[in-house]
């Protein structure tokens, strides 16, 4: 993991002091509500339905055991004993008190964490593949680049007041597990014919009210030019992005308005002046950051672990968990293990302090002290020896963290919705729960295979419903909570946005509706065919007919 040095710490400490003073001035009436709103948002502080919510940045989703323990401590000391992991690999505390936020930030700073730019109209936390650095199918490790972007974007003086929020995602493998096509900027790491590292640059993707798949504005950007090129994109956006209407202020609208070609040309023109300037990365700096992501001291396993193999055959529940919840690793004899935060009856992504501490301890014991937060709102122990998987599984199972549903229908991505969020049209957590209850049979879930079901409580799409194979969006119908369904959304190299199936449904009807959709899939699928592929093959009408059929 990247280790902060004195300089990194000083930046964070000075930010904490600045925010402490801003909070003091607000409470003393020296800053108006409006002035303070913009400032607190840039520090991740929202005012929600019940209380302020603090969003803490987990840079590109990587945490140490020590940091996770501190998050547990904060959950206990300043919240109601739990936190909520988000689709952007961050954590939110839903019940903090405003005057205490500077103290929380100070505690975070002690373990090199902060809430800088976790909301507001600025450059947000950069996200990446949860399996970065360990995935077997990776060609370049994106983490050093994420860290370089983190430093560049932190308190960037030119871009603190953008037209709207700005999100960057980096992917280092063909699978694109970072949803780069639905970010303001998506970077795909590549190697050119000469073996040099660079990026394919995608701009203008996004979810929200006007979901769009991003466009390629540059096929290959040589790595040393990353920051000058980002400066150019951001400058064009800062100067020309719309500021008169917040629903039209994202960069995607600017790109569409200018056309991709004109936008790309404008960026190139700007970049021509910045290229080779002082922000050009040096080999030395790239090396320095890359070295921080050292390969852990893996053991060498020359043959499969016998006890692991035996457990796989003798303990079906373990075998099922290994199949669904572990991911292939670069290093022979290791796996990345997914700890599901999606057990039925708990809000997706929520985790209490006691279990955070447990996870921190398991990580220390079996995963080189490292934890990842996935944008599917689960936790991942990235380097577990196959030999240790059974013990980990038992420990996780004992506290309800071994639900073997990663990637299955009940691994629901779900925003906090109407239970917490003041922007919501409808609740999302109870819908997730009702669906999880309906599909409680694990054998059946296993048979259904990969299905991404994503729920957002409003158009802002924090639950990424547009890229769910099944997307659920809370809508307001004359003051009542209704739900609109989209089908066929997908994130990945062949990303697609879901299509609306038809009129929305009342909450009580949702489990039945989902069941009908699943029935169509089961009847029409070909052997081994995923839900998404069946949908792409047979189209939406068959689903529509079933869902809206009059009872006969």
């Amino acid at each position, binding site marked *: 993991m990247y280790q902060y040095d004195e300089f990194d710490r000083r930046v964070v400490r000075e930010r904490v002091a600045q925010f402490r003073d801003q909070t003091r001035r607000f409470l003393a009436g020296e800053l108006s509500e409006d002035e303070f709103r913009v400032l607190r948002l840039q520090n991740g502080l929202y005012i929600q339905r019940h209380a302020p919510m603090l969003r803490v940045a987990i840079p590109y989703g990587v945490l140490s055991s020590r940091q996770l323990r501190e998050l547990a401590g904060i959950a206990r000391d300043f919240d109601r004993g739990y936190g909520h992991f988000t689709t952007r690999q961050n954590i939110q505390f839903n019940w903090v008190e405003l005057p205490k936020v500077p103290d929380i930030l100070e505690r975070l700073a002690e373990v090199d964490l902060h809430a800088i730019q976790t909301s507001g109209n600025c450059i947000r936390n950069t996200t990446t593949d949860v399996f970065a650095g360990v995935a077997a199918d990776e060609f370049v490790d994106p983490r050093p680049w994420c860290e370089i972007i983190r*430093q560049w974007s932190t308190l960037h003086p030119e871009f603190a007041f953008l037209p709207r929020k700005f999100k960057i995602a980096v992917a280092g493998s063909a699978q694109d597990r970072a949803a780069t096509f639905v970010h303001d900027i998506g970077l795909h790491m590549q190697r050119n014919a000469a073996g040099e590292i660079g990026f394919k640059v995608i701009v203008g993707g996004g979810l929200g009210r006007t979901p769009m798949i991003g466009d390629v504005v540059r096929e290959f950007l040589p790595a040393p030019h990353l*920051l000058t090129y980002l400066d150019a994109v951001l400058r064009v956006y800062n100067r020309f992005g719309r500021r008169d209407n917040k629903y039209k202020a994202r960069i995607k609208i600017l790109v569409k308005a200018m056309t991709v070609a004109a936008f790309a040309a404008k960026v190139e023109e700007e970049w021509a002046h910045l290229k080779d300037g002082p922000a050009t990365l040096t080999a030395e700096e790239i090396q320095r950051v890359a070295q921080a992501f050292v390969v852990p001291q893996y053991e060498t396993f020359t043959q499969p672990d016998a006890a692991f193999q035996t457990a796989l055959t003798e303990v079906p529940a373990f075998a099922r968990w290994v199949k669904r919840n572990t991911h292939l690793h670069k290093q022979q004899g290791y796996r990345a293990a997914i700890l599901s935060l999606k057990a039925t009856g708990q809000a997706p992504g929520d985790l209490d302090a006691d279990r955070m501490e447990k996870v921190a301890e398991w990580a220390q014991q079996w995963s080189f002290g490292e934890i990842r937060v996935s944008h599917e709102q689960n936790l991942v122990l990235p380097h577990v020896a196959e030999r240790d998987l059974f013990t980990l599984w038992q420990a996780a199972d004992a506290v309800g963290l071994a639900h073997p549903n990663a990637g299955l229908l009940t691994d629901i991505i779900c925003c906090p919705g109407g239970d917490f969020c003041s922007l919501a049209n409808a609740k999302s957590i109870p819908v997730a729960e009702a669906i999880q209850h309906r599909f409680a049979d694990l054998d059946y879930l296993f048979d259904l295979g990969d299905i991404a079901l994503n729920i957002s409580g409003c158009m802002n799409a924090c639950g990424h419903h547009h890229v769910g194979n099944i997307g659920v969006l809370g809508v307001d119908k004359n003051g009542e909570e209704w739900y609109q369904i989209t089908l066929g959304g997908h994130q990945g190299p062949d990303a697609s946005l879901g299509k609306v199936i038809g009129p929305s449904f009342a909450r009580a009807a949702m489990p039945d509706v989902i069941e009908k959709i699943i029935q169509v899939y089961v009847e029409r699928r070909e052997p081994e065919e995923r839900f998404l592929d069946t949908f792409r093959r047979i189209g939406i009408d068959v689903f529509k007919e079933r869902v809206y059929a009059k009872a006969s």
Partner: protein
Amino acid sequence: MPKLVRRGIEVEEQFTWVDEINPAEGLPTGAIWVPLVSWLNHHAACLAHSAPVGVYLQPEEDPALLLPTLQQVSAIAVCFPAFHDGRGYSTARLLRERYGYTGELRAVGDIGQDQAYYLAQVGFDSFAPHDETRVAGVLRGLQDFSDGYQSTWARPLPYFLRRHEKP
């Protein structure tokens, strides 16, 4: 005279703010700030003025328009009608870093303590908050951060190129 901050100290405004000029009626006496459009349209009259003439830009105005006459302006101001409209930050960098402007560059309007540091980084060296009581805050805000990662006008070398220097 309204107060402002220039090059780190509190001073009084010496210029008169002019919304529009009409050469037929003559220019107001003394140093004046004129809008970009007036400067461009009545350039000769501005040059003939007996006292300094500064030019102010609105957030949407392109600083490139000043390029041919950049050497003739006495000062440039960039307006911030709302502090969360960040276009002026890019305007400043363009004037300083691209067009090589070295004279006084002033941020005017809805600015205060919480913007001062960023403004100073991108090239502003004078600050005139519309609300005079914010002047003391601006002076404090300039000290909010002792350093930063990026390459800026105030600190052209990004931190990674200075890492080895001893503080």
